[in-house]
């Protein structure tokens, strides 16, 4: 049945598809000179100040604020702002976006990493194409980014949360941690330091469990419920993520455990105001994410324009925040964490 006609027609069709592919590949290679060197090396005039923020995920109040700070900075120095992120905080989600941005040839990226090593290959491809990459909030391993903008030292962040919970539960009892995603660099760094701090300085506090809310509100809500049910003697919950602490507070507000179980962690004043005012939460900590994004944008600009190279000791101007110096490991430190409680929560709007 497979006479020469069928074989011939099959061959023609296969040839057509093959030709299409080769044709697109060939035409793609032709404009070699102008297009593919990409990125920030437009020799003709201004440096390419198109900076894109790639937070961990979309729909997160913390990143909305930090990226708005970045936008403010970018508008100040006349660049182009964009924000791209996956809907869920996964590393491979970020990789696709970084790849697309590499193809588009932006000038710089500000990334908050979902994993320390998984996105390295994509970032290095971007850097090979001349794009400057700065990490903020959550770092990657130091060899695959140009600079890291750290909001506060990890030790400081861990210590302040442990101190707050110890204060609120009388320095003894069971506590649990409600974290974000299991791979996030900053989360794991803080959790490790918290565990060490508790073991050394608070022998009567027992850390019973660490659960992951994946920076998703519903999951964090349900995980809080599960924690409270599984550990009836739980005295405190630490949630070093703004999504987690807001969801946990909302659950506590309508449950029997309100007032009996302490909750602290990292939260934004706007999200937590209600809960502080009705005493579900006593105190929590954070820094100003808008300043973090602002600084990250200025640092990226300094890299793109060649003002700094990320070596230790480089200094650059960051608009209204003043001048900053690069520390060891190509890190720039923003400042110290700040405690919010009933007295000062009315003073902030972010």
């Amino acid at each position, binding site marked *: 049945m*497979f*006479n020469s*006609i069928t074989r011939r*027609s*099959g061959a*023609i*069709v*296969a040839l*057509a*598809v093959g030709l*299409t*592919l080769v044709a*697109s*590949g060939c*035409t*793609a*290679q*032709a*404009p*070699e000179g102008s*297009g*593919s060197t990409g990125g920030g090396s437009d020799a003709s005039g201004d440096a390419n100040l198109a900076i894109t923020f790639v937070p961990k995920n979309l729909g997160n109040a913390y990143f909305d604020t930090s990226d708005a700070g970045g936008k403010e900075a970018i508008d100040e120095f006349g660049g182009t702002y*964009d924000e791209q992120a996956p809907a869920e905080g*996964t*590393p*491979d989600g970020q*990789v*696709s976006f970084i*790849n*697309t941005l*590499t*193809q*588009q*040839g932006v000038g710089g990226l500000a990334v908050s990493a979902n*994993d*320390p*090593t*998984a996105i*390295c*290959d994509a970032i290095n491809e971007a850097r090979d*194409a001349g794009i400057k990459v700065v990490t903020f909030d959550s770092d990657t391993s130091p060899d695959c980014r140009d600079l890291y903008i750290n909001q506060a030292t990890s030790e400081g962040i861990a210590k302040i949360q442990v101190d707050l919970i110890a204060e609120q539960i009388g320095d003894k009892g069971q506590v649990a941690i409600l974290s974000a*995603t*299991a*791979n996030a660099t900053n989360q794991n760094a803080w959790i490790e330091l918290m565990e060490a701090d508790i073991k050394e300085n608070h022998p009567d506090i027992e850390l019973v469990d660490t659960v*992951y809310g*994946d920076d998703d509100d519903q999951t964090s809500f349900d995980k809080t419920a599960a924690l409270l049910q599984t550990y009836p003697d739980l005295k405190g919950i630490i949630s070093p993520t703004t999504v987690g602490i807001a969801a946990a507070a909302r659950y506590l507000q309508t449950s029997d455990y309100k007032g009996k179980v302490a909750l602290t962690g990292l939260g934004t004043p706007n999200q937590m105001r209600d809960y502080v005012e009705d005493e579900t939460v006593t105190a929590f900590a954070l820094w100003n994410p808008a300043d973090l994004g602002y600084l990250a944008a200025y640092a990226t600009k300094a890299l793109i324009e060649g003002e700094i190279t990320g070596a230790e000791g480089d200094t650059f101007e960051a608009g209204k925040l003043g001048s900053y110096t690069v520390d060891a490991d190509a890190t720039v430190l923003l400042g110290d964490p700040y405690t919010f409680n009933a007295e000062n929560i009315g003073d902030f709007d972010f």
Partner: protein
Amino acid sequence: MTESAITGAPTTVRTYKNYGRPLWRRLLISREAAVIGGLILVVIVANATVYRFGTPITLNYLLLDIMPILFIALPMTLIIVTGEIDLSVASTMGLSSVILGTLHEGGMPIELAGIIALIVGTLAGALNGFLVTVVGLPSLAVTIGTLALYRGLAVGLLGTKAVTEFTEFWTDLAKSKIGDTSIPSVTILFVILAIAFAILLHFTPFGRGIFAIGLNDEAARFSGIRVERTKFILFMLSGVISALAGIYYTLRFGTARGDNATGLELSVIAAVLLGGVSIFGGRGALHGVIAGVLLIGALGSALRLASITSDVINIITGVLLVLSVVSTSFLTWLHKKRTKPGGKKTVIPAAKG
């Protein structure tokens, strides 16, 4: 014209054509040709209008991105042609990804871990096949169950952690290019598999059996085709190719996670149906399917580069899927209306007496 000896009426020698329609109509007025035409159209328009679509790096990322879908579309086509369906492919991908990750993390050399992952994929496909052919359950229900089961095993083994340390040689190989072009080397593996599947489907008795089962599996059984054995083999093939795609996905992204490739089965089925395979079974061809996958991939890539967000891309994929299936139905209805009794009237001249 000779005269018949009995009646004296002239007898003619009737000739029968090999096909009902001329070659050009068979080739160009077919579902597969429409998809290939659509693909060419999208590529040309995107080249012209989307900034930086024509760069070599675009083709590279495009192929790297849709490679798992290309791999899995091959056995999926065969399964859908027999009238079954396999929704558990993405979960098998995730499971093999996790097996690769945990074994390698536990110290096993990556090559051995990869082979074990392939074996696990085959077993997963065999379980599907067993439940469908031996127990006699509908494949939709079985694969919804195994979709949950395999994904659950994958997530259960690893939690929400991810394994990200892999031998550089293999992760580089997954992303390497052929010589100086921008075509990734994994395309070679795909082309070999595509040729193998095309030969299997279109040029062997096994493949003819697949079409026969799709058209009417009772009749196929009575014709001597071993229906159960064919379906079992197809599900096992689907399992092992999904495991292979899972290994590729892991090496390409450098991450083994329990929820890798969640939702990929929808992309595969969308592409296969777009490529002209009938959901009722019995009809389809591999070149249409490959063109369908490339079409969806190129469309997605062009839209992403034009900074159109991925949700719009998803809407377009969903609408394309619905249109592709509804259009077949619509065209059949149209065809029936035109040729039904009472439709076009043709006058048959009476035979000359």
